[in-house]
């Protein structure tokens, strides 16, 4: 009986298993192999040992620039995005009428934002003579186009991400609705202010959801590509200021044809994301509160 059932399970799983093996596992293993070679798309790969990895860490200033840019981007974009999502979710949670409409309206940017076209519109808005430049100039702040200045360009990429706070917002909303009403009623009876309730009830009760969002958005932020690619015209400029990790990886792979080096970079990114996620999980022990565990 069980074997027959298992057989049926494998039949139904077979499309997925095939897909996972052929389209994900196999390419990953091949890229692991290529990361130890000098593969350049044109000639057969030669084994070079850890040269790619050594070169990355010791003699490639652009690699470190891309790491720095990505770290800066994660540190700016993730907290801002989560803060925006949380504030809007809190506001929406207390809205009585038209909640569905507002929820959709705030979610809409997330549907559009990942696309190339929005990134191009974003570039036009923050360009010399674009909307942002014109509006700021009209109030006497002549900063010029943000995308053409090394100090500002990465910020425009981060802002594009922050604007797409829809997904974490919806998850926050769901989390907020799970918090038992009695807690607030009891707090109100004890004379706790709204602010006090937020700090002592909402945030602790929401911390598992906050943690979930933090992990998810951090992983995504490390892999940011489309907005940086579109806003810098694929070059990571001006002066490498928007050269994020995946953009540099793409540059090595497809512009410079150093596939082996790019494969090595991909594996370093995978390990780095794994480490950061592990750190987040470790830190969660001290700040995430699970109500059911405590009881």
């Amino acid at each position, binding site marked *: 009986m069980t074997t*027959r059932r298992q*057989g*049926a399970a*494998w*039949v139904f799983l*077979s*499309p997925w298993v*095939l897909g996972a093996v*052929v389209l994900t596992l196999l390419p990953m293993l091949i890229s692991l192999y290529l990361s130890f070679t*000098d593969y*350049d*798309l*044109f*000639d057969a790969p030669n084994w070079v040992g850890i040269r790619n990895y050594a070169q990355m860490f010791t*003699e490639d200033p652009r690699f470190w620039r891309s790491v720095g840019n990505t770290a800066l981007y994660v540190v700016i974009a993730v907290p801002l995005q989560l803060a925006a999502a949380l504030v809007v979710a809190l506001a929406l949670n207390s809205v009585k009428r038209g909640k569905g409409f507002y929820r959709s309206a705030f979610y809409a940017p997330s549907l559009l934002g990942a696309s190339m076209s929005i990134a191009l519109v974003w570039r036009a808005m923050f360009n*010399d003579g674009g909307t942002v430049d014109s509006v700021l100039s009209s109030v006497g702040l002549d900063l*010029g*186009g943000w995308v*053409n*200045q*090394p100090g500002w360009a990465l910020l425009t990429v981060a802002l594009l991400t922050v604007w797409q706070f829809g997904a974490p917002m919806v998850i926050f909303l769901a989390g907020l609705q799970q918090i038992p009403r009695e807690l607030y009623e009891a707090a109100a009876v004890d004379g706790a202010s709204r602010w006090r309730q937020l700090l002592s009830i909402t945030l602790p009760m929401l911390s598992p959801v906050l943690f979930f969002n933090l992990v998810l958005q951090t992983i995504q932020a490390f892999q940011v590509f489309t907005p940086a690619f579109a806003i810098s*015209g*694929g*070059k990571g*400029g*001006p*002066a*490498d200021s928007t050269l994020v990790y995946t953009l540099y990886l793409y540059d090595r792979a*497809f*512009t*410079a*044809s*150093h596939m082996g080096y790019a494969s090595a970079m991909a594996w370093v990114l995978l390990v780095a994301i794994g480490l950061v996620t592990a750190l987040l999980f470790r830190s969660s022990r001290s700040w995430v509160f699970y109500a059911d565990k405590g009881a």
Partner: protein
Amino acid sequence: MRRKWTTVSALACCLTVLCGLVAACGGAEGVSGGVALRFSWWGNEGRAKATEKAIAAFRRTHPGITVQTSFSSYEPYKQKLATQAAGGDAPDVMQLDYRQISQYAGSGILLDLAKRPELRRDQMDPALLRTGQLGGVQYAVPMARGTQAIAYDSTLWAKAGAAEPAATWTWDDWAAAWRKVAAATGKAGSTDPGYSEDWFEVWLRGKGKALYDGGGIAFTDEDLAEFWQWCTTLRREGAVSSARQTTQMDGALDNTPMGRGNAVSDPSWDAASSGYKSLVGDSVRIAPMPVGPDGKPGQYFKPAMLIGVSARSPHPAEAAMLIDFLLNDPGAGEVLGVSRGIPVNDGVRAKVDPGLKGFDRRIADLQKGLEGRLAPPPPAPPKGDNTLQSTFQRDYDQVSFERMSPLEAARDYLTEAAAELKQ
């Protein structure tokens, strides 16, 4: 019984999926009874129309050969072609850039065209033909002839009281004119030339030097620092475009300072400059590039693009016939006109020339004026140079945004260049 059914259905499922995969990987087969060639190239709509017309004419004279074309703009084309070549699936006939030749030839992707009698080369300029050779093997042939030129808005130029540019103008003569134009118009006199390896090469050649010499870099950090220092002085004076403007250069004319209305001239390529007509107006003119301090021109006749045949093509003879038709047939020459630059075949060029009007006329006249005065073009840049163009612009960004001194950035560039060329 049921057990058996499960096994059978499992096998059936696997087979279905496998069939799908095999079919997807199969690719297009030739049309039965005839020869099907694949021809890829980069360009715009105008070039596409001319090319399709020429291919229709080819099919009339060569029944039994069909040609499937595909085209896109340059950057995506470059990446797609590299991926195809890596998969052993390069098109039969492919358009190539000067900077791709070493890479493709060195990797055995291209056929030796000298061994294909179908492709006649006797009416082509030998110096230009050599740009498609590597180690004596003709991997590709030039499709058209182009050269560097400075495009400028002649109305604003005259209004500013600057003299008409002359073929004898040195870099400093140009700088003086740029200052004058900038002071009178409030716009930059020119795009800052420091962003591009192409203009640096003209500057170097004017001094009797070169970018490459037998595969390695042939100039010193001091040469490059001197050029960038010269640009920096002009940039600080406002005679050439600011860092913010220059950093937007990406190969598209509408993103140049001149295309955006912030500068009055732009170092460019002769055929490409015709695009300024729609951005600036009919007052656009082209002038030869500045000459070196002792009057030596640094610019050269360059293959605007080359064309080659895949070494794996099952139909090398037909592929060579197609190229021969596109480059040597007078009828095709008439249809293609100067959509890729001035024709390389002397006979076709002479035939097309009288019919040229407007900007095409200016391009032809500019080239005529330069004939006999220019040093031969350098051999194809070494493998790795493809990447160095963007490295050059990036390093100059560091200079123009005042994050590095010209000498620091020049050393940075040479370090990276050495690493790229070694690989």
